[in-house]
């Protein structure tokens, strides 16, 4: 029974090589297997969410070695939530991909499933070095996906992506080494137990290690000033890959939440809330840089990419408050912003494929096939991304504002979140009206008829519709969802239960 916890890693790790070995000549077979695997992951993560919602922290000792000597996987509410979010996102993205993207290069499905394996592992592991390993898995798989289907621009952006992330990996090893040198452990729970008892002589080494690790996670989460890789990568990656990457930034956010509530929380003595002082200003600046970028963007892809940066700022502001209500708000917004970004990338792809010569650039073209329908989807996507009602972004922002009430930075947080929302609204309205409304220059004859392009199939609409439907569900059932997230946040702020579950006693 207990093996369920390791399954989210094992299933894709078996399915991916099978597809790479036996099915790389037959795309249909690969698609069937890939979708089946992802569906299995969705079902599995639903099961794990149920399992985790009993409030216990479940552990799985790999190789039957006790923590902290072996590697331990840990399932609690947060990791279960991340697994569910990942698999649901992956399923819809995959539906979009099998409408054609997956055959523009080789090994799409194998790399896709390997990426899922890396993500699932990163969300489950309770060990730093193992986290590093899964970061590598997802980095190298994502690089393979990023350059899928090739092209000079994409390869150039891919090089930047991989170089900056490799620099991040190197720093990861160095930081973990520093932490190990003063605590002698790689196990997160064990670290949490030791941090309060670190002698003052060793404190600087521990703190430098922990904060450099924050920088590593910030690279993943695209926080200013280490966000530079994101706009190029996301806007040039193949659309389904960009959509899946919506969860990649959340890996960084997840790691930040996990480590700095578990080991550097209230009980950490002199090291308590170590990350807050660095994280908050970075998050605020990230929000501004992202939303300014939305206004500046020259293509839809870039605009959504900068909106992702902005949303990471919005997400990490409440994280940096390090209170249970703020964390709950942050988690709600995390789920929302992942879905919203993914949906928008898929919509942008539909636009780009139909406006062949100008792709997604912000310039006018003649009407294209299914313009009205896609415009409607874009409108909804933009509503979600800018945090307007009735989709979940609005509720997320309300929760964040509400949770920032007691902060000393309340005026800054409220002011910046609301003002940048206006920037985003203006940016998206400008772009949308240019792409979907302006089909001719004033004075030129108006062409009402759209060019009929051969339209593939309905799968991209199903995929985008599915993601939007998830946001509707997230909105309609905001009450129960918030309840789960409140409990999740409460669990995060009681690290002793995690520590006991992993180390026993």
């Amino acid at each position: 029974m207990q093996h369920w916890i390791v399954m989210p890693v094992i299933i894709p790790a078996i399915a991916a090589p099978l597809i790479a070995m036996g099915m790389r000549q037959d795309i249909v077979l690969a698609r069937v297997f890939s979708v089946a695997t992802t569906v299995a992951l969705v079902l599995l993560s639903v099961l794990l969410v149920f399992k985790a919602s009993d409030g216990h922290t479940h552990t799985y000792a790999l190789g039957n070695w006790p923590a902290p000597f072996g590697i331990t996987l840990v399932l609690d509410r947060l990791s279960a939530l991340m697994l569910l979010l990942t698999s649901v996102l992956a399923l819809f993205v995959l539906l979009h991909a099998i409408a054609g993207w997956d055959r523009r290069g080789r090994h799409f499905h194998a790399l896709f499933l390997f990426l899922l394996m890396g993500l699932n592992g990163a969300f489950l592991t309770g060990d730093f070095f193992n986290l590093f390993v899964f970061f590598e898995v997802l980095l190298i798989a994502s690089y393979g996906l990023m350059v899928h289907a090739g092209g000079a621009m994409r390869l150039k952006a891919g090089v930047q992506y991989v170089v900056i992330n490799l620099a991040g990996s190197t720093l990861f090893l160095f930081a973990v080494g520093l932490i190990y040198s003063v605590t002698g452990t790689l196990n997160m729970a064990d670290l949490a137990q030791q941090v309060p008892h670190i002698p003052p002589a060793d404190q600087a080494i521990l703190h430098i290690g922990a904060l450099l690790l924050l920088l590593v996670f910030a690279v993943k989460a695209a926080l200013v000033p280490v966000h530079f890789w994101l706009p190029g990568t996301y806007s040039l990656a193949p659309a389904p890959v960009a959509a899946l990457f919506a969860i990649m930034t959340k890996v960084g956010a997840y790691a930040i939440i996990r480590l700095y509530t578990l080991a550097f929380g209230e009980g950490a003595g002199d090291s308590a809330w170590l990350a807050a002082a660095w994280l908050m200003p970075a998050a605020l600046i990230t929000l501004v840089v992202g939303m300014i970028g939305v206004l500046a963007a020259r293509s839809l892809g870039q605009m959504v990419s900068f909106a992702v940066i902005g949303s990471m700022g919005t997400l990490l502001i409440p994280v940096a408050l390090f209170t249970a209500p703020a964390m709950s708000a942050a988690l709600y917004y995390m789920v929302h912003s992942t879905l919203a970004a993914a949906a928008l990338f898929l919509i942008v792809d539909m636009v780009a494929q139909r406006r062949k010569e100008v792709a997604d650039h912000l310039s006018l073209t003649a009407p294209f096939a299914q313009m009205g329908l896609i415009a409607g989807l874009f409108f909804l996507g933009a509503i979600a991304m800018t945090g307007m009602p009735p989709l979940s972004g609005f509720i997320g922002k309300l929760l964040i504002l509400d949770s920032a009430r007691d902060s000393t930075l309340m005026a800054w947080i409220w002011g910046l979140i609301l003002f940048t929302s206006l920037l985003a609204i203006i940016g998206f309205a400008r772009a949308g009206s240019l792409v979907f409304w302006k089909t001719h220059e004033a004075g030129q004859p108006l062409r009402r008829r759209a060019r009929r392009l051969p339209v593939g199939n309905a799968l991209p609409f199903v995929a985008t519709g599915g993601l939007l439907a998830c946001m509707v569900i997230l909105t309609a059932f905001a009450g129960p969802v918030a309840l789960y997230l409140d409990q999740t946040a409460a669990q995060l702020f009681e690290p002793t239960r995690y520590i006991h579950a992993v180390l026993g006693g």
Partner: protein
Amino acid sequence: MSLVLIVMLPFIGAVLPALMIRTGRNACTIATASVTILAFALLMTHVPAVLRGEVVQVGWDWLPGLGLNANFFLDGLGLLFASLILGIGLLIIIYARFYLAKEDPMGTFFTYLLLFQGAMVGIVLSDNILMLLIFWELTSLSSFLLIGYWKHLPEGRQGARMALAVTGGGGLAMIAGALLLGQIVGSYDLSVILQHKELIQASPLYVPALLLILIGAFAKSAQFPLHFWLPHAMAAPTPVSAYLHSATMVKAGIFLLARLWPVLAGTEIWFYLVTTTGLITMVVAAYIALFKDDLKALLAYSTVSHLGLVTMLLGFGTPLAAVAAVFHIINHATFKAALFMSAGIVDHEVGSRDIKHLGGLVMLMPITATLATIAAASMAGIPLLNGFLSKEMMLEEAAHTVWAGQAWLIPLLATAGAMLSVAYSLRYITQVFFGPVREHYPSTPHDPPMGMWLPPAFLVGLVMLIGLFPQTFAGPLVAASAGAVIGGPLPDYYLSIWHGLTPALFMSAVALGLGIVILWRYTQVRAAWQKGPHPQAKALFDRTLTGAVAVSSALTYRLHNGSLQRYLAWFIGACVVIGYVTFWLSSHEAGNRAMLPAAPVAIVGWLLLIGGCAALMALHRDRLLALITVGVIGLIVSIGFVYLSAPDLALTQISVEVVTVVLLLLALNFLPKHTPAESMSVRKVRDGVLAVVAGLGVGAIAFAAMTRDFVTLSDFYLEQSLPGGGGTNVVNVILVDFRGFDTFGEIIVLGIAALAIFALLDGALRGEVGRKLDAWVSTEQRSMNRHPMMLVVATRVMLPLALLVGAYIFLRGHNVPGGGFIAGLVVAIALIMQYMASGFGWTAKRMRVDYHGMVGAGILIAAATGIGSWIAGHPFLTSAFEYFTWPLVGKFELASAIAFDTGVFLTVVGAVMLTLANLSRIGRRAQHQQINEQPMDVNPLENTKN
């Protein structure tokens, strides 16, 4: 329950028109109208209760943690607004059916309209301000769609964006205000908030909350100086203008002021902010309206002016003024909707709505002229019409209001506003419908079909009925809604035409007289106005926005300039700042571990390492030399591992070095051999400083870490390696057992890398890169003998030896240095040597292995080993081992770890070989040479024959 249905019906029904348009325009209209009628009928079922003074309530918890409840309530104020929204909405639907042209997509129009209608009804029925905010922003969004409905017109698009920016932005301010208000009261439910006047007004948060809410309300209700979006929203089709600017959108701000009036009004700050804003808006907008030639622009500014009037009344804060405000809301909605519709008729049937091209239409379109004249007269405040009644009440209140000690100010300005209102209303009548008939109109004027004039006619009927019998037709509604606004007992008032010789009557008469004078002298007045300045809010707005975009662009693209060096400089810079600041802020002490003496060998190694790095810096432009230097550095590191008693690491490091250098050499073959000098000296200095500072920091912290003792996990591993893991080589037991899961992940990384390289190069070869390679001519000097005999013979001899070494290293791995990873690399090197010696073609023929399969098999074997432990009831990757004794062989161990290590081995070999295979594919494309069938270019046998 039915309250929720009233709100939800338009939203749900919004799908209908989009679908029903497929059967035709009439079916579409009927479907849309049915939705509205149904909602209106449901609303009417509550009328008796509300008029009795009851409040109908319904609600559910939605997000109780936040205080966001789906609560709705219907009181007098809600009833008034909901009736206006749904009632006038119905008339607009009928009117729009005849107004919209054939090529306008009607289904879309009605869908947008119903969405907007639902949002408006939602605002006025919400009993939770967060809920209200949701609908509030929904009106901004749906009005964006309505205003931009004629998307081919630039004015439509710009007007829509401007409206969204201003009203949506105002909504954002209101979010903050609402949250503050909720914080004061402890609930977001309006029915609770409205009970806490003293609490709210005593709170220190009252002023910020009030300011933020007022920004939102003023933006929505187009109050000065946020009024400028409204005239530009006139780019919408006329039914939209008639709807948005008479009964709905702009009234939302007024509604909110009225809704919160019981708790926010009555303070000094409220009085000065709201009254002053309303007053200025009323006068300024009326003044501008006087000089607008576009009928819809004239009506737009008159709307702004009348909204100012209502705002001012609400600002007074007295119950009587509130009654007047409510009454004027009704009256304004009726006559203004009628006026917009008649302006639309003129535009539709005459082909122009420019006053300069109109005039003399009374005989050509008598019905329209009659309707427009009555409605405009009501707007002017002519007696016997409803506009007169509420204007009288306004003037009466204004007469008693003192502004900062000046008793004359408000009465005077209110009279001026009324006077201007008379002037532009009469101008609308006289210069459009009267005067000489023109010879040419853009098209032949005639009265419209009944469907178009009936809706305004109905409204004009109301204008007259309320004007004549105010108590009968508006009394109960005014009483109910004013009661809701005031939230207490109604003041003593009486709706009637004649109140005696009051100051208001006098002011009214003066306004009427002067208004007529202005119109009489219109040419002179206009000439005077022409000379004055005409600040253009739109130009200002556009400039601001263009400026914001330009600044954003400059900032964004200057920061994100695509330079990888810069991005890495930020990254390293962040490391440096974090490292040094944290060191400075945290307590620290020097380590106290005893230093080891520096052996001469170590010093030599150290110097070599430094020398290697220095050489690399000096040579880095010559890539081939740089690569060799990197190899040297790697070897010194390996020696370092040996020196520090880590043979496993050394073995791994050496084999990894060899494989990487070989693969890099192969890749470098197709790359430029020299790195061009691109950096400017400033950047060199920057990078140099960063590198030195970061390097020193890393060195220092590493030194600090190494000079202190610490407890690690090593003891456990050393202790458990043999009894628990079945091996004496702790490093290997860590790799395949203690932390086998890491290894499992790492071999997958290797496998993915190989697959990704294959995918990348395969794609590249099919595309432009492939064509480039076909045309590629190497400029390098190349060996004439591709496959030198010495190399061929040597590698052939070494192959079995190397494979044996590989097998040996693999098998001994568990107990002494070695293992699957190193063995895999050794075997891969041995195979690579064959390829190097005899070429890919020859070798591939003799090595029929599918490397994809090898990588996959390796991962699967490792996974299967892990899963095998489930059978024994243990977690993934739990090892098992047993000792056996065979005759001759003796005692030996069989461990599950060996299966796992086999997986590692296969993956490593497969990944390296797959990479090699792909690099050589490029080579074959580029060299344009025949694939060699023979092991060597020269056949030694042939030579002997000769």
